[in-house]
């Protein structure tokens, strides 16, 4: 038995994606920059993939740039926006960012004023405070659209309005890596300048990501080389990866509503059963449309999340503590602390994150084993 519930860390590629990629490796292995027909063939396929990727957020194909992954997209965008900053400028982000944004802001603390806007108990940005923080010298506001640890969705509409009303020149970058393909995003409706996303979170291949740059916005290049991706991300394109990413997007575009509805109902099912079956637990995720459909963060009192993860892997169930990118760092509860989680619960958090392959049939087995494991661990720890 193998039940993979760590889809926010990464996902298994869908068979159609793999098929598409194999074709590129075997047949269309040319370099899009080559003048001959082998180059042209693959160039066409990349443009098709670009359209598929754009469609998920209703962007124009020429606003999409392929990168080497989500972290790279965040770096290219933020460093690109901040290319010409000086000491009078300031930048704003939240305390619940993924390390790929948080650590860039930390890096800039040495150079300019960096402000961190508070979030409420559910992880939502405090709009009043945000309004106060944005001033005439604010160059950039960056925030995570769906938090990777507990899945809270930020209000794109309100946040962008608040920022641009206060200073229309302030650029807005959105880390949509957990949001892309999971919640509806119509980028036309909001004055977002750049947005980062990744392929391997939506059953596409690893090592490829996307960056949306609004046609009204220009960012400076931070990587130099050839003119691929308009010089934003030079280097020979990862053609199989890009095509695979495109196929993954097509599969979502086909059936977006069915896809997310299943996640919402599975999430609710897990949540109901866990709450019913196990005492002393806290659900950290929002269950209504303020929370992403695929992320359920649960904390158990008197448990160590890591131990529960090992108990569950023993019976073929794979979940995560907090988020995979920071879970190897010991006692790193930065994000959970930001939503004021009770200290008794802090260490006992796991994240169940859903993907295309998960089914309703799995729920009972998972709940049964979580219950059993939690009781066993509590017995041993409490003794």
């Amino acid at each position, binding site marked *: 038995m193998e039940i993979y519930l760590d889809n926010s860390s990464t996902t298994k590629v869908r068979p159609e994606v793999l098929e598409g990629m194999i074709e590129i490796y075997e047949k269309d292995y040319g370099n899009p920059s080559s003048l001959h027909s082998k180059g042209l063939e693959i160039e066409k396929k990349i443009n098709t993939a670009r359209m598929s990727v754009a469609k998920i957020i209703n962007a124009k194909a020429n606003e999409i740039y392929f990168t080497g992954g989500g972290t790279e997209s965040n770096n290219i965008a933020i460093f690109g926006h901040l290319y010409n900053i000086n000491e009078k400028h300031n930048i704003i982000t939240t305390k619940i960012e993924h390390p790929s944004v948080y650590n860039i802001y930390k890096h800039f603390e040495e150079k300019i004023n960096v402000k961190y806007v508070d979030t409420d108990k559910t992880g939502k940005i405090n709009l009043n405070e945000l309004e106060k923080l944005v001033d005439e010298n604010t160059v950039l506001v960056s925030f995570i659209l769906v938090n990777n640890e507990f899945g809270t969705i930020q209000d794109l509409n309100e946040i962008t309005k608040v920022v641009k009303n206060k200073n229309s020149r302030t650029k807005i970058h959105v880390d949509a890596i957990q949001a892309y393909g999971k919640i509806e995003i119509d980028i036309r409706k909001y004055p977002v300048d750049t947005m980062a996303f990744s392929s391997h979170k939506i059953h596409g291949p690893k090592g490829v990501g996307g960056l949306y740059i609004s046609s009204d916005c220009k960012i400076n290049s931070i990587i130099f080389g050839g003119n691929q991706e308009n010089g934003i991300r030079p280097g020979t394109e990862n053609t199989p990866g890009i095509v695979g990413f495109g196929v993954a997007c097509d599969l979502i575009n086909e059936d977006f509503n069915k896809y997310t509805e299943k996640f919402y109902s599975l999430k609710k099912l897990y949540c109901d059963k866990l709450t019913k079956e196990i005492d002393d637990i806290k659900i950290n995720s929002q269950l209504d449309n303020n929370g992403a459909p695929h992320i359920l963060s649960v904390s158990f009192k008197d448990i160590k999340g*890591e*131990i529960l993860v*090992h108990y569950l892997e*023993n019976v073929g169930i794979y979940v995560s503590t907090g988020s995979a990118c920071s879970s190897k760092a010991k006692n790193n509860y930065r994000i959970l602390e930001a939503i004021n989680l009770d200290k008794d619960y802090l260490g006992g958090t796991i994240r169940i994150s859903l993907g295309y392959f998960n089914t309703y049939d799995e729920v009972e087995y998972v709940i049964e084993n979580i219950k059993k494991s939690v009781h066993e661990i509590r017995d*041993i720890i409490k003794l």
Partner: protein
Amino acid sequence: MYNVLALSFGEIFLKGKNRGSFEQKLAEQIKFALKDFKNIRVFKDQGKIFVETQRKEDMDDIIEKVKKVFGIVLISPSIKIEKDVETIKENVKELFEYITSKKEIKTFKIHTKRSDKSFPIKSMDFSAMIGGEILKNFDNIKVDVHNPDLEIYIDIKSKCYISSEKIKTVGGLPIGTNGKALLLLSGGIDSPVAGYMIAKRGVEVDALYFHTYPFTSERANEKVKKLAELIGEYCGKIKLYSINILEIHKAIKENCKEEETTILARRFMMRIAEKIAKENDIDMLITGESLGQVASQTMKSMAVIENAIDIPILKPLVGLDKTEIIEISRNIGTYETSILPYDDCCSVFAPKHPLTKPKIERIKKSEENLNIEELVNKAYFTMEII
């Protein structure tokens, strides 16, 4: 330049009846250390061991590996040639040119050692003859027999070996010449160092690792495996036993006082280690204990822990400070792995206020609440050998 390494041992160990088995063990260790290299030959020539490679470009890497083999005192990278006077002349000149192209040499001296007495020219005469050849061919160079910038050694055995450089190694005795011990290997800094130090005295080392999976991570296992591999560069391939003691910790937690946890658990570890040792013809245990470092390493704690078993425990770090242990750990290359942050079983079940002055009577009394034999056997059956 060089195609063989001539190895020197501490003279004292070369004497007596053990010499044959000593040399054989050493040759085995060298072959093991060089298992990843192609076209390697380890051979003896009139009482000396040599390592030969047909790929001169590998020589620097080979030296790095051989330096770590216990039982060697010095390595001389050498040129192996036929013992024909003209050939020797040519090769000494070539070596001389090679060395002078790298550093400035004003004075030199030639040493000749003639183990093969059938070689027609006496050592002193031969040194003078070769020295004359050098003086004839190179400018601004003088002989200095007392304090030369460069010494060239010509060793005439069944073949001739020319060398100039001598490289220091880690020393010690060849593994396997001094019995076998079982190292209690945790994921920390100390135990790999302890294993290294005992292995250095010629002891073959097996290792034993205790974990409490799923209370500890599989990554912790990987870390210990990595540490065993790292000290294996010195000790030869290490057999690593891994044992799950979660049931023991549970039983202790259920039946005994929290403050006694560490002492009781350590006594169980010793019993399990003793059992493995006895079944595998192992004479002693090794631990990384250092006096006073933690609660279980006070004089009284160590005495009570040791009391659980009959076989001796070697504690090579007992008188070292942490900084001294860290220094060795860095030198042997285990430090970076040791400090990786994965929980080992000590940290999850560690009591808040551990006993530092346990009394044996009291600990024995506590153990009356536990079925020791059954717990040891249960743990023993979780054994995996890596």
